[in-house]
């Protein structure tokens, strides 16, 4: 490899970095939001999604948690505690959401969800069934 190719390559790399840095500095993290997840203790398979996809993020609104056993059976007698925050900013949610309704068939309504900032949030669910608690965290990009 002669010194000109080295120079050309260096220039190419610098140029690419330059373009990337100057033209896409604000690009959002395009990571997909996980749809369902296995709880830490592998007790449950959990999904957690907004009740109404059109809700305004910065007003209190409801989400639905769906809880199944590892075998795919709905868990119908759970109690759920929810909190959330942004690890990158060291703050929590502007509200204190609560489970307000057991909708049956393993579905639960969590009301009072609110996000005052766009970006990546961590949503923590603690699910208790028959005195046993298991937890699950969703990394959720809120636009």
């Amino acid at each position: 490899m002669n010194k000109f190719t080295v120079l050309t390559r260096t220039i190419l790399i610098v140029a690419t970095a330059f373009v990337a840095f100057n033209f896409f500095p604000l690009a959002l993290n395009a990571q997909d939001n996980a749809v369902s997840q296995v709880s830490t203790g592998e007790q449950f398979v959990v999904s957690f999604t907004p009740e109404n996809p059109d809700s305004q993020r910065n007003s209190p609104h409801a989400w639905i948690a769906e809880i199944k056993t590892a075998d795919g059976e709905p868990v119908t007698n759970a109690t759920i505690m929810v909190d959330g925050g942004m690890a990158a900013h060291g703050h929590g949610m502007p509200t204190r959401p609560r489970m307000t309704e057991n909708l049956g068939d393993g579905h639960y309504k969590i009301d009072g969800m609110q996000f005052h900032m766009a970006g990546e949030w961590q949503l923590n669910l603690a699910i208790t069934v028959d005195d046993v608690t298991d937890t699950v965290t969703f990394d959720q990009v809120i636009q």
Partner: protein
Amino acid sequence: MTRRYFAVTLVAVIISVAVAGTLLFGNASLSDAELKVARSLSLASLPKIPPDPSNVVADNADAVQLGALLFDDTGMSANGLVSCATCHLENRQFQDDLQFSRGIGTTDRRSMPLRGVGYQTWFFWDGRKDSLWSQAIGPLENAVEHGFTRSQVAKHVLATYPDEYTRLFGPAPKLAEIPPASPLGNQMQQANWQQLSEPTRDEINRIFVNTGKSIAAFERTLVPLENRFDRYINAVSSGQEPGEDATLSKQEINGFKVFAGKGSCIDCHSGARLTDDFFHNTGVPDPNNPPSDRGRATAFAELDADPFTCLGRYSDAAPDSCLDLQFMAREVDLFDRTFKSPGLRGIAERPPFMHAGQIETLEQVIEHYNNAPPAPLGHSEIVPLGLSNREKADLLAFLRTL
């Protein structure tokens, strides 16, 4: 070999020029991703004003008209000289340019601009009110603002606007001769309030609240105004060449990038009103020593004790629609000395800044954020930014376009 050498030199020269150019002028165009963020701060992304179910006349045209009269009415003050407009001047973005406002006495916080106020959830710097109508009746009985009492307000409104009132709220009760009476007034006024029967108190409260609901209807019409930044974003996102009153300089565009990037301003000053409508401790100094204003931390007890919230008997909302109050985060420690992020539209035109007007210039505001001093109470959420002088100047230029 020489040709190769020439090509390489040419590329190197082009890149050096480009780099030097960016260092000198910055990259002044917006990528698609940046434009999307910029648009989120422009009026183009302002949603429709949310309904206020706690106020049945919130969008009633007659209430708007009555509210406008009440807003300017000096007859609802202890000395006959103070109206809402005394501290919220229409031609000054509905604020008063003072560090502390002057009514019957002097306030201990800075007045707030009112455009876009109908979009908010929490009112005052500490959010101790949860509706615009409940906010509006506060100053009337505040000893240093209007210094009036609710019995006087009720009598004044029925006497001055009998037809307007009846048209909106139905036949008004006949109020007997009642001395100045309020549960929040001085000793004599409180004693007078104690003397009244429960039904009379309720009648007075209702007229008092309807006064607030009419003022709120008027305030909901105070929409945010278009600024140069909005016009620029509109032009650029519709693929047009920005007109004369719609251009942004390279410096201003770079300032936007600092605002949305390294400066992290957009973390709290987001959306078309440039606020997240939430409470933060940003370490601003307290004019009093020892510091006395705990901000949001003292608002929860006030909301609990307030008969005029969304959940109270004078609200028109079904209790299960009062979500903001029901799910409100309310840990006193977490909110020590937090204040509501103000919207930044028109910001350059209204010094002094912060809840007690304690920072005089925008340059000093930027220095404050760049240095991130420790909070006088509680914990500041901001961190030093390490902005260069050029970045500070750019940010300042951007703030002036709002």
